[in-house]
């Protein structure tokens, strides 16, 4: 290892781990001791990353308050140092961290709230994609419909949550007092996507969520309707399927519809 490489490794350890070895190679300034000057880098490291987390998770910050968010943020910084050159991706692991690390894992609403904010952030700057219009559907002959396959818009994603984090998100967004955190009897099925430039989400029924998940796995419309028939009244399954499809298209959730083989 070159002397330059050794020095950089020590400098980094000094910031990340509090190791003072590098101070032996740093000078006092005319007005200040080296420990204080090196401390500028130590302080900036944690505070910059926690600030990035605050920007990405405004409502989680609002929910936890400054002190708890900072404590949580510094724990995340310690547990998961950044490996990506773009700060945009630093908070990506936060939902998983909150789900698995004590004491946050005792409050599953935190992980759910972070996951919802992450999904909205991801929708905001997701890749562009063509949006299927209702008029595009007129080109398919009625007998082709059972073979139709669907391609989701790049900004569309699904999230299942086990708490009332969506209600808490809405209350915080509207400057209202959030409800007490509770677990749900059945998971809530959320759809997140971008409409023009605005990220949005809505809750799906279990049936619609199943249809979306299977549609995006490449299952054709005819089979989707057969699957819907097992969820509720079989006679109205095709109508329900067509209704969900209509909703997806008007919301801009599909980027392509094609007749699959």
């Amino acid at each position, binding site marked *: 290892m070159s002397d330059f490489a050794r*020095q*950089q490794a020590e400098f980094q350890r000094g*910031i990340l781990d509090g190791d003072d070895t590098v101070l032996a190679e740093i*000078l006092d300034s005319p007005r200040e001791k080296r420990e204080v000057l090196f401390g500028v880098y130590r302080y900036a*490291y944690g505070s910059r990353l926690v600030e990035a987390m605050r920007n990405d998770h405004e409502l989680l910050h609002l929910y936890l308050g400054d002190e708890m968010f900072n404590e949580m943020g510094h724990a995340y910084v310690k547990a998961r140092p950044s490996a990506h050159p773009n700060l945009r991706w630093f908070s990506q692991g936060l939902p998983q961290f909150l789900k698995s690390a004590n004491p946050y894992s005792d409050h599953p609403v935190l992980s759910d709230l972070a996951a919802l904010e992450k999904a909205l952030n991801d929708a905001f700057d997701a890749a*562009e994609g063509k949006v299927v219009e209702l008029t595009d559907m007129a080109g398919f002959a009625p007998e082709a419909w059972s073979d139709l396959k669907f391609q989701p818009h790049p900004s569309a994603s699904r999230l299942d949550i086990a708490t009332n984090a969506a209600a808490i998100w809405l209350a915080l967004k509207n400057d209202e007092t959030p409800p007490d955190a509770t677990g749900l009897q059945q998971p809530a099925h959320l759809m997140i996507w971008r409409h023009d*430039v605005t990220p949005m989400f809505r809750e799906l029924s279990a049936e619609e969520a199943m249809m979306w998940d299977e549609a995006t796995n490449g299952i054709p419309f005819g089979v989707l309707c057969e699957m819907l028939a097992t969820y509720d009244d079989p006679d109205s399954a095709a109508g329900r399927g067509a209704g969900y499809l209509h909703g997806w298209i008007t919301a801009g959730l599909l980027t392509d519809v094609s007749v699959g083989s």
Partner: protein
Amino acid sequence: MNVASRLPDSSAAALADRPSTSAKPSFLGFGLGLRHQHYEEILGGNPPIDWFEVISENYMLPGGQPLRTLDRICERYPVVMHGVSMSIASTAPPNFEYLQALKDLARRVEPKWISDHLCWTGVHGKNLHDLLPIPYTREALDHVVSRVQLVQDFLGRAIVLENVSTYVQFSNSEMTEWEFLSELSRRSGCWLLFDVNNVYVSAFNHGYDPLTFLNGIPADRVVQFHMAGHSHMGTHIIDTHDHPVCEDVWELYAAALKRFGRVSTMIERDDDIPPLDELLLEVARTREMAGQVLLAGSRAE
């Protein structure tokens, strides 16, 4: 026979200094750092700004509003790309995925130039998201020269490097920062972004005269000035970019104009972002001051 003597001539040449011969970028006028808080006002009003500098990483994204806005800005104004994560002085292997994303963005933006900082941001697979200082040694200079050459070859253009604000100095430095920058520019052919505020901050922190730094930089290598604010802590100054430009830095700007002449200048504000009008006043002041100083200089001649 040693390994070096077995190298074909072309390989040996590849290891030598290969300064880029790219033409010096032309003068753009007086600009501002593009920040999302001002998107609407800029697109709605076409404010009198000659050019914008954009933070490259803010647009190294798959899509959405940031890139759509950037496209519209590029239709109306000259744009320069300024990055914070090239980590040109890192001893870790270069991040080619990052460089490819930078190159892809440049293809979209067609920037007048691409700049970053003389610094490193991490080693061993970690990124500290800070502009970390280096020792000014011959070993570090050789390393950075070779990295700049590699990046310039990869991007297919000369890059522009900025002096950063530093809070510490290394005991093993063998030259000054301005000597290091001058040699780096001469040997690699990279251009220099002279951050007036950073010179002021580093000079205060390390106890030297900012004019010594200024006079040590070759005038023909500087293609851009940065002007920014900082936070004074009494015994040291932190480069926070969250205040207006202070009077001492305006004074140093006048000295920089006298030495470097007409140079593309911009106001760089990254935190506590004020209304656009407030920043436009600072942009107007860079323009007025340049007019006065350069006019006085031409009269004196």
